[in-house]
């Protein structure tokens, strides 16, 4: 019964035939590892079979395209394919350094949007969660949550439509202004206001939903702390500062890390839907640049190079931020 120690004993007891073969031939020890795999596969082939459909999808549509990134090093032409296209080394990556104005504009817009959204969008659900958490009535809290989570599940097409109906040139707001003798404001389709517009759309859609994690963390803060501090005469503001916020530190840092890893990705669907109205100058970001140059423009190699660099930088950012979190003594996204 040599195998019994290495594997769950129940299995062995259940399949006496296997046990017998392995215990009868102690001399065949060196030959065992391959046989062991085969035995294990014979016993558990069904589990491996279960895994196959999803793994095939993952390999075909995730890992196969990952290899397809080699076209970043090619002058890729669709009718020649990856096999036939000419290899050009790092030529496609020149776009990153040669000061191409369209590319620089996309990078600039991406970084500005990320910055603005980190400053305005990120704290909003924290404030809302604190507000909800301090409500006395649980029923009111539940009702508000139900309403505020809903927009998260609507598509960007719908969100953009809703904003257009309300704030567009012939939308509700401007009609109301006109009927009251004012001049219509250009809110949608105004390049100068584009970042403010998409930021408010993101807030409308996701602020409520983003409170869900903060509320869960808030509900886990030890209520004794509030009791005790209140006995000691702490005001609500002091409780907020000394109990609530320290309790939320971990989750805030974790979400900031994830945000940092995503900092080169800003609302692609949202922006591509509205790009026609404001033009590329105000709205081109890295992802739309890849789309417009690659899929629309047929500049496959350059677009793939930009996408590849973006992907690599994002991974480095997540790993780096996670490391940073560890240095600050936080648990971060994952641990070794």
């Amino acid at each position, binding site marked *: 019964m040599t195998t019994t120690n290495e594997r769950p004993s129940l299995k062995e007891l259940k399949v006496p035939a296997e046990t017998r073969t392995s215990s009868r031939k102690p001399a065949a020890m060196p030959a065992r590892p391959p046989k062991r795999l085969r035995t*294990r596969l014979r016993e558990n082939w069904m589990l491996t079979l279960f895994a196959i459909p999803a793994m095939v*999808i993952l*390999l075909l549509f995730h*890992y196969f395209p990952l290899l397809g990134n080699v076209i970043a090093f090619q002058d890729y032409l*669709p009718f020649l394919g990856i096999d036939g296209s000419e290899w050009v080394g790092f030529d496609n990556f020149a776009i990153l350094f040669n000061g191409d104005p369209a590319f620089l504009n996309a990078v600039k817009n991406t970084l500005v949007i990320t910055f603005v959204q980190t400053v305005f969008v990120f704290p909003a659900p924290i404030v809302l969660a604190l507000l909800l958490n*301090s409500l006395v009535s649980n029923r009111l809290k539940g009702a508000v949550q139900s309403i505020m989570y809903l927009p998260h599940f609507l*598509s960007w097409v719908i969100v953009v439509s809703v904003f257009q109906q*309300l704030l567009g040139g012939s939308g509700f707001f401007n009609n109301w202004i006109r009927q009251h003798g004012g001049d219509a404001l250009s809110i949608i389709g105004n390049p100068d206001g584009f970042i403010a517009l998409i930021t408010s759309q993101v807030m409308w859609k996701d602020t409520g939903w983003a409170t869900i994690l903060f509320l869960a963390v808030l509900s886990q803060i030890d209520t004794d702390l509030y009791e005790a501090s209140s006995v000691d005469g702490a005001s609500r503001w002091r409780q907020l500062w000394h109990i609530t916020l320290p309790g939320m530190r971990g989750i805030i840092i974790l979400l900031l890390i994830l945000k940092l890893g995503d900092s080169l990705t800003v609302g692609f669907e949202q922006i591509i839907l509205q790009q026609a109205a404001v033009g590329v100058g105000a709205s081109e970001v890295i992802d739309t640049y*890849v789309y417009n140059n690659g899929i629309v423009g047929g500049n496959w190699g350059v677009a793939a190079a930009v996408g590849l660099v973006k992907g690599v930088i994002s991974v480095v950012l997540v790993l780096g931020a996670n490391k940073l979190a560890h240095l600050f003594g936080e648990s971060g996204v994952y641990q070794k």
Partner: protein
Amino acid sequence: MSTKLNVVAPVRKKSKLHNGQSMPHPLMRVFKGLVLTIACAAIVLPFVGIISTSFAGQDQITRAGGLVLWPEEFSLQAYESVFAGGVVSKALGVSIFVTTIGTALSLITTALLAYALSRPNMVGRGPMMMLVLFSLLFTPGMIPTYLAVKQFGLIDSLWALIIPTMVSGFNVIVLRSFFMGLPRELFDSAKLDGASEWQILRRIVLPLSKAILAVVGLFYGVGYWNSFFTALLYLNDSGLWPLQMVVRAYVVGGSQLSPAELGNPDVLPPQPAIQMAILMISIIPIVCVYPFLQKHFAKGVLTGAVKG
């Protein structure tokens, strides 16, 4: 002494909240009420406008110049014209097909993989788990994915809206951690009784996982229903468009729907009413599944967040 205590006790109780915090200042409460009311109104009122306009008649829409806040007359013309068999009906059919088939396939493949990865004696568990985890960290990018879909001959096929996004590594991990949390004794005793892995999954694990499967399924379903970018990328033929693409063209883009495109309805309702009716049709399914989602999603999201 005892009377004094009786007086003190209720006061002290009243000044504490369930979570031990003291009662907020009245002004603060007014301020909070105001903030929450505005926030909720900002979400609810647009929908009131959309619903009302989709039912409103020509006169009122002309007078309002677009959205109306409350319909004076109740007209179903917009919905009748949209369901007259034209572009919108067709797109609705596509969306329903993609959502139902996609969700079913996603759930089956995801649950099977998650179950396999949750069993300690599975062959190849380590490497497969690595592949799933790594897929979350590094995504292949738009261009190579597009070229792969093209190479597999899925351009201008509805399967392009389903297959590439069928398995989400995140959902695999959520389900796997749930399966791993089930009591070990269940598996051991089933094995002793001679049950195969398929029987264990079918008879024991799945019935115990209904709630989490519902959540994962609903998330997949909402994803398929809402997906517009896959359609933009992979479908050149507008005859295959799902509903979101129709909303994009006729509501965001503002193109007018001609009677022919609508399937020649008897009456042609005002365009804003048609647009809002289309918008409603794409919102209603979400609103219908939302209560079920909401009941469970905190759990689903948290499982992913804590274990992921």
